[in-house]
């Protein structure tokens, strides 16, 4: 589809209310769905932009950008994927804009209250697929456990989901007993799930990185959106959802 690049005559002409809104496509990790849906319209109003949000696993979004998808902003659930894209010249220098907490999630009435309980045989565990950040954080974390514990948890894994929404869905539907997600995903379920904090020595550092896609037709507007993730309506929405500020 030809996005009317020609009508993006000038991204800086914000005052001109009569001009049609400039289209800005934001590819963001699924874990930011609720937060960005709240703040994107506000950003759009301020900038006279029509912000299109596309949520999926960070890896899938990166793959779309590699396949030359028309995207202006890439916001991932780790810093590695943006760095990789930057190294390949696909996005401008990325910034870390938020942090998240990696937790064990269980249904609200579950008896599970520590990672030890998840080692019990027969506990149904869902994790992220190896290719998504949540999946690699999970494996990274489990690798820090004593080998027999790591082995028994991995043996309990019943599904490797392509994004966090799949993990949360399996948990809220009672299809699984425990899963590894971000604390913000648990917050977003409004009480259906509870988060169990992991011991500090296990907890991975979860940083969210974002950058302007090199081929964006609206680089200035895209840059302002990225800036707004650390300071602006979207920064507020992210913190409201439970994200930590950029380090």
């Amino acid at each position, binding site marked *: 589809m030809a996005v009317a690049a020609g009508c993006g005559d000038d991204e800086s002409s914000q005052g001109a209310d009569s001009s049609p809104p400039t289209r800005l496509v934001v590819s963001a990790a699924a874990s930011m769905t609720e937060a960005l849906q709240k703040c994107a319209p506000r950003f759009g109003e301020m900038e006279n932009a029509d912000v299109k949000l596309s949520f999926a696993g960070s890896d899938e979004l990166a793959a779309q950008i590699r396949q030359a998808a028309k995207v202006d902003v890439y916001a991932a659930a780790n810093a590695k994927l943006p760095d990789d894209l930057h190294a390949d010249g696909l996005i401008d220098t990325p910034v870390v804009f938020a942090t998240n907490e990696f937790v064990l999630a269980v249904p609200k009435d579950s008896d599970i209250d520590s990672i030890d309980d998840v080692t019990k045989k027969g506990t149904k565990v869902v994790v992220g*697929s190896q290719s998504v950040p949540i999946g690699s954080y999970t494996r990274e974390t489990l690798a820090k456990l004593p080998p027999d514990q790591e082995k028994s948890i991995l043996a309990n894994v019943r*599904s490797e989901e392509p994004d966090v929404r799949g993990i949360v869905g399996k948990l809220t*539907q009672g299809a699984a007993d425990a899963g590894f997600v971000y604390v913000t995903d648990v917050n977003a379920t409004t009480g259906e799930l509870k988060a169990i904090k992991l011991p500090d020595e296990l907890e991975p550092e979860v940083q969210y990185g974002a950058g302007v896609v090199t081929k964006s037709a609206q680089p200035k507007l895209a840059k302002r959106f990225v800036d707004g993730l650390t300071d602006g309506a979207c920064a507020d929405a992210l913190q409201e959802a439970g994200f930590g500020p950029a380090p």
Partner: protein
Amino acid sequence: MRTGGWFAVSLTLCLASALAFLTLPIIAIFADSSPVDLIDSLGERGAVDALWLSLRTTAISIAIILLVGTPAAYLLATRAFRGKSVIVTLIELPLVLPPAVAGIGLLAAVGPAGILGGAIEAAGIELSLTTAGVVVALTFVASPFYLRQAMAAFGAVDRSLLDASRTLGASEARGFLRVMIPVAVPGLVAGAALALGRALGEFGATLMFAGSFQGVTQTVPLAIYDRFSTNFDSALALSGVLVAVSGAILLSVKLVQGGDALGGWQTE
């Protein structure tokens, strides 16, 4: 002839664009993946597991569909009763349902928290996140394709054949098995092929209801999706395998039938 000229040209143009549009992605899959990649991808453990799982679950679901669907379609095709069109519509509804709706529906119905979830659990059956769950998802999305075609096939059989077998003293059951099924076979095979293709390609309902785990619930489409981001070449190669298998099914059905049931193999 003059007006016929431009009309024929536009018909040809439309056909050419349809053909190009429909075949280009398939050609691209093979153009982008060398035969070496294709064979390499088959040597990879996860790919083999996915292929084997897809074949197994599809075979089981097609067996269930044939076993239950054939008599059901026969009943609908040979009886007139109140509310029949409602039943037919309900049966055909999954044809037009988005896969995500099928997945949510299955979770709400037979998932652990679904309306029948408790009863199923009490019976000691586990569906979500299991291979059995994959079969349920495939059967749900694929069976309407068979039922629809089978109803049409039975409906097209000359009733005097069945009546003749009845007057010769055969029971209806015998007439169904010995007369109706053999006569309707081309249509039934076509329906089974459509259902098979749909089952092999099932993605959304499987992911939502059964999850994705290598060797247990990760069918070929799910394996392709899993590789899409990390290993596009491998995803292409697996896609190539799926195209080849699906193409082979379609082709063999057409050859077996000599061209009738799927709408004419021959051009005339």
